């Protein structure tokens, strides 16, 4: 690239950034993308291979920034993924609670077995005591899995924080071509209360619902009876 070319690009970049700063008070990555596009427009592929190359690279960089913003914005506004991280953390909390409850039930039952076995005497009593001891030992899994899951919950919180920071970096205005309504567009507008089946069976794989949010067996029985 010639010295004249460098000076021209540098002046354009500097002028544009100063202007953006004066107008908006701060510059986001989207602004930088726009500046790159402006710089690309000052180049002419007709001026030679260097101009053409730089023009293409700058345009590619600007598009990359725009695409990245669309991806970040889609994470923040897509109805399914907006709460995905929070949902995942809640599910993991439920895992810890339910494994704790189940573990207590198992140990209660083991206690009952030990109490019933006490007085049996002999080898039988010893065999039963040994077996219940193994049950208690195995129940320590709950503590270990709880610690592992807590680590994952903290990791998810950290990821959510980083996504928030990235979104701040790109600015709060949505990109022009954002397409956040993935499932809604696929299924069409549904009337209030209407159950719309997704087009792909894979979208039926939601897993267990959080406590208080699932459909009870009684409600499922009513629904089946009405079909």
């Amino acid at each position, binding site marked *: 690239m010639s010295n004249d070319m460098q000076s021209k690009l540098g002046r354009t970049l500097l002028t544009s950034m100063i202007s953006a700063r004066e107008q908006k008070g701060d510059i986001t990555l989207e602004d930088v993308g726009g500046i790159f596009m402006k710089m690309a427009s000052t180049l002419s592929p007709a001026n030679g291979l260097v101009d053409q190359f730089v023009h293409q690279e700058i345009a590619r960089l600007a598009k990359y920034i725009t695409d990245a913003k669309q991806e970040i914005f889609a994470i923040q506004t897509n109805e399914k993924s907006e709460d995905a991280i929070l949902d995942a953390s809640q599910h993991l909390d439920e895992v810890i609670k339910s494994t704790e409850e189940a573990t207590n039930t198992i140990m209660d039952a083991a206690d009952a077995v030990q109490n019933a076995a006490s007085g049996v005497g002999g080898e039988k009593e010893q065999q039963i005591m040994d077996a219940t001891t193994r049950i208690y030992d195995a129940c320590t899994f709950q503590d270990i899995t709880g610690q592992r899951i807590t680590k994952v919950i903290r990791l998810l919180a950290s990821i959510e924080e980083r996504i928030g920071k990235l979104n701040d970096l790109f600015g709060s205005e949505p990109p022009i071509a954002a397409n956040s309504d993935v499932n809604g567009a696929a299924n069409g507008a549904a009337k209030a209360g209407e159950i719309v089946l997704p087009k792909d069976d894979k979208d039926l794989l939601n897993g267990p619902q959080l406590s208080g949010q699932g459909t009870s*067996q009684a409600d499922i029985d009513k629904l089946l009876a009405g079909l």
Partner: protein
Amino acid sequence: MPVDKTMHILVVDDYNTMRRIIRNLLKQLGFDNVEEASDGADAFKKLQEKPAGLVISDWNMEPMTGLELLKLVRAHPTLKNTPFIMVTAESKPENVIAAKQAGVSNYIVKPFNAETLKTKMISVIGEF
């Protein structure tokens, strides 16, 4: 006609502990002729080799889900009338509707107890 408790039942779930639990419940109800499969593909292969009087299947499995297994069973010339109970954590109304449209005989949402399993089995295969 009373239910033959020697009937062959296929239990399908990718979680070994769940298969063990259902097998134990079936044993308590008097059904000992129980085979297990770890996913839909494994189950369909086994059904083709040995048809079952009842299939009790989870939904969320890989590489083949319980819904896909159900559709295959209902499309198969000799297996299409096999009683099929879905036992799953998938509890949204859309899931129930999709399963019903695919031909499920009954639907149990996890967690469930022995009494629920018995009630649904009776509704599908008759009193026992």
